[in-house]
């Protein structure tokens, strides 16, 4: 047996706790079966308890599975074990939540008994997959969030722990929403009539099959993310290929939904819309990852040193996800600009707008790096967010209030900005902030070496 899983079983499934869970649930279902006027009955109560035990409580336990080890000062000992990253990941993911799964399994037995009796085994099987899936996705998303956060710092407040759990809960809500659209319409009154088809890459996909396949693929990416983050914790280096593969997947996946945009953007052809969707996805990923990942100036200098010394592969092994997402954004942005350039009839002011957006994203990611190199860098991300709030919200509001709408292109891409001036302003800001960040990194190195 996986030693990490076994250790968790020793800690979580003591005879007293096991009996308590089984006894409490049995009493609850018995009471539900006796209560008059309760619409749900034992099966409905079991469904509710499953969400509480496996999704809500389970995601908390998953989020705490590594954070708790750090708090209790046992994590370094675990990192020095010879367990593989995969063994450690699934040992933690399912070991820390084994008590939740025990309760969930009891609830599932009650639910499935009811479903098989009333709706047949096929529906019961589909529901079983859904319930297992939502539990795994919620817990793995929470574990992934906590592992990403551990890379940034070792101290974790209760609020931080709640945030990691919240990632899992949001993922579970998304699954619940998708299932309400695509799953077999059964007991829950909240379920709406399922959409029949989803247009994707010009084809009409069966909605149920498409959404469930998507769900499975994203669950796979989440588990892979946990594994990759665990590798980093165990001091194994991750190459860039998996994140690049994820970017390619996301670009292709999201670009397929161009039919949703075409009614609003009739002047743009399918290729332009697909590039726009892929680019927008990469922009979002860039912002999310630059916020989540540690922006350690020592690491950046190490990368530069390795590349400078000709150890290219070594240096590239230190590439962070935000860097690759940023490059992908630039590539897609340039491709979109070129496409618009050669399709004059649909270009309009789109091309300068795209280039302006690339300039602004350059400014923003450089700002996150710059703020980490300034004194008091521990709160660098908050500082960067504050500056961005000023640049995107407060300053434009003031400028707008003063009646100077025509200069709003300085703050964010404007559809009606003077041709190319918006792009120029954005890139000037981007290059200025990037230069400042690079200068600070160089100054830091000199200071550290002379210390």
């Amino acid at each position, binding site marked *: 047996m996986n030693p990490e899983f076994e*250790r968790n079983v020793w800690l979580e499934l003591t005879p007293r706790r096991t009996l308590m869970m089984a006894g409490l649930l049995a009493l609850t279902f018995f009471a539900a079966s006796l209560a008059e006027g309760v619409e749900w009955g034992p099966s409905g109560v079991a469904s509710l308890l499953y969400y509480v035990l496996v999704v809500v409580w389970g995601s908390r336990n998953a989020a705490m599975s590594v954070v708790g080890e750090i708090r209790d000062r046992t994590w370094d000992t675990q990192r020095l074990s010879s367990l593989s990253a995969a063994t450690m990941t699934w040992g933690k993911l399912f070991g820390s939540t084994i008590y939740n799964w025990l309760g969930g399994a009891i609830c599932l037995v009650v639910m499935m008994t009811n479903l098989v009796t009333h709706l047949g085994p096929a529906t019961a099987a589909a529901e079983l997959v859904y319930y297992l899936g939502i539990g795994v996705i919620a817990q793995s998303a929470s574990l992934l969030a906590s592992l990403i956060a551990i890379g940034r710092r070792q101290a974790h407040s209760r609020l931080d722990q709640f945030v990691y759990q919240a990632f899992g809960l949001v993922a579970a809500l998304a699954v619940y929403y998708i299932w309400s659209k695509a799953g077999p319409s059964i007991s829950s009154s909240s379920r709406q009539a399922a959409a029949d088809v989803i247009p994707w890459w010009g084809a009409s996909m069966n909605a149920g099959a498409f959404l469930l396949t998507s769900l499975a693929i994203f669950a796979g990416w989440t588990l892979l993310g946990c594994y990759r983050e665990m590798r980093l914790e165990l001091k*194994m280096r991750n190459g860039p290929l998996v994140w690049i593969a994820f970017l390619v997947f996301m670009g292709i996946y999201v670009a397929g939904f161009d039919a949703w945009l075409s009614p609003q953007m009739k002047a743009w052809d399918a290729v332009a819309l697909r590039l726009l969707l892929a680019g927008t996805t990469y922009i979002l990923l860039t912002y999310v990852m630059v916020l989540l990942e540690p922006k350690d100036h020592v690491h950046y200098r190490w990368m530069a040193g390795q590349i400078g010394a000709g150890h290219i592969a070594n240096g590239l092994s230190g590439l962070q996800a935000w860097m690759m997402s940023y490059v992908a954004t630039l590539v897609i942005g340039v491709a979109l600009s070129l496409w618009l350039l050669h399709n004059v009839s649909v270009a309009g002011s789109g091309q300068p707008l795209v280039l302006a957006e690339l300039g602004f994203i350059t400014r923003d990611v450089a700002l996150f790096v710059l703020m980490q190199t300034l004194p008091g860098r521990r709160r660098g991300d908050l500082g960067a967010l504050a500056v961005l709030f000023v640049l995107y919200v407060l300053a434009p509001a003031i400028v707008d209030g003063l009646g100077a709408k025509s200069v709003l292109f300085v703050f964010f891409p404007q559809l009606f900005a003077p041709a190319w001036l918006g792009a120029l302003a954005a890139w000037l800001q981007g290059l200025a902030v990037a230069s400042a960040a690079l200068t600070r990194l160089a100054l830091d190195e000199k200071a550290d070496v002379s210390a």
Partner: protein
Amino acid sequence: MIEVENLVYEYPTARALKGVSLRVPDQTITALVGPNGAGKTTLLRCLAALEYPYSGRVLIDGLDTSHSPRDIHARMGYLPDFYGLYDDLTVRRCLTYAARSHGIASDAAPRAVEKAAGRVGLLDRLDSKSGELSRGLRQRLGIGQAIVHEPHVLLLDEPAAGLDPQARRDLSSLLLTLRDGGMTLVVSSHILAELEDYCSEMIIIENGLIAGGKAIKVRDDDRPRYMIELATARSDLREFLVGHGADVVEADQVHALIVFTRNPGARAKLVRDLVGAGFDLASFGESSKALEGAYFAQVGRTP
């Protein structure tokens, strides 16, 4: 064998190690000492492949920590200065988990657990919960977990902190037994007198560098340390001793700490020569605080 070459390690706020080079031979116990914040724990974490060097390299049994961290983890035992135990598990289960997570098969684990428990004197506590153990017994369990898989290299960060005198003596015996069994140990500690009982070499870390640039031999059965005291000050004491084959660790006009052969005839001759040269010899004897003397002779000299 542990080899460190020009190791530099940086935290985001400071450079903690500034080019440390050292070599720890097999089957030795090396003390790592120095003021608080000098970089001892950072160095141990780099040796344990828990941190990547910024530059330079660390080799454990020929494996580079930057390239083969997991292989190094498998052959490493490490007890951090602040460590936790699973308080709700019994000693047996704590040791079993440590053994299994280090790759010991489930059928071989009970034997490894019994052996480790026997080494750290916890055989009679195997079924006690670790949360019920005293400070000293918890320390033993921590060491037991670190050695259950018979590591080649054992790193201990302040292992004697909080232990009573008897427990410290037991710890010394245990470390010597482990060394004789084939392990290479690096022990960080503030308690110099205790280190003298079992360490063969001492590395003083100060301000991210090795004070004096190299390890200091703590104990050499063939060439121990002697303290010489004069009743009357002589400015040429150091030169005289160097001229007569002694390695002078430190010296002023009335005292000298030297390393010299244990051979009785040679020692008798040195004493005779000192007296013959007019030195007003008040005492000549093996130093009981050699490590402390060597430490304070080095600390503060780091550029």
